[in-house]
């Protein structure tokens, strides 16, 4: 049973460029969440997708956008990259079951360096 997978593993961009990160959820999961983890800090919630719609959003600017596909995989897009966007980007998947506490399972992350 494949877990959460992310691509690419590493990425180097320059300021002002745009980047797309990809995530495939764990088998059987239908919800994808994205988190940003700056060096030495805990992950910060970016947004969450379910049924191809953004359901919740954290305190991130509109430069951060996403998409979920019918097969539940997801993309995170960041436009107009800033140096401060350098971080580990983590994808987490879960199965949305009403009335219960979802458990989120994380992928290995994509490390983005903005120069």
């Amino acid at each position, binding site marked *: 049973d494949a877990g*959460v997978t992310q691509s690419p593993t590493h990425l180097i961009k320059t300021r002002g460029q745009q980047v797309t990160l990809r995530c495939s959820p764990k088998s059987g999961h239908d*919800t994808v*969440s994205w*988190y940003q983890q700056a060096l030495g*800090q*805990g*992950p*910060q*919630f970016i947004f*969450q997708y*379910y049924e191809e719609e953004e*359901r*919740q959003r*954290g305190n991130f600017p509109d430069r951060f956008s996403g998409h979920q596909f019918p097969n539940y995989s997801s993309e995170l897009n960041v436009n107009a990259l800033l140096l401060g966007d350098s971080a580990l980007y*983590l994808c*987490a998947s879960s199965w*949305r079951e009403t009335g*219960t*506490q*979802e*458990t*989120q*399972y*994380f*992928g*290995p*992350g994509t490390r983005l360096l903005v120069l």
Partner: protein
Amino acid sequence: AQSVTQLDSHVSVSEGTPVLLRCNYSSSYSPSLFWYVQHPNKGLQLLLKYTSAATLVKGINGFEAEFKKSETSFHLTKPSAHMSDAAEYFCVVSEGTGFQKLVFGTGTRLLVSP
């Protein structure tokens, strides 16, 4: 808003001795709490979760945590540390009644010496 506070940024133990990683939470209602571990250059792995069932929660690799409402604490313990336990540990609270997001603490780095 819910939050968690990890009281120690670093904890050092010797192999074979007990581990205690401290976490306090702030919540307006009964929270769901988690501990995740992150090994260097790896993603996050779920150690255990509390969801208002038993207050003593057993996780993987010999870890357990006790939910104490009166103290608003959810400390992580292990009777005997192993070298492979050296990692970053995050206490996490789930926020939201519909679509839930995770709110992470700042992390505790566990160092294990031989």
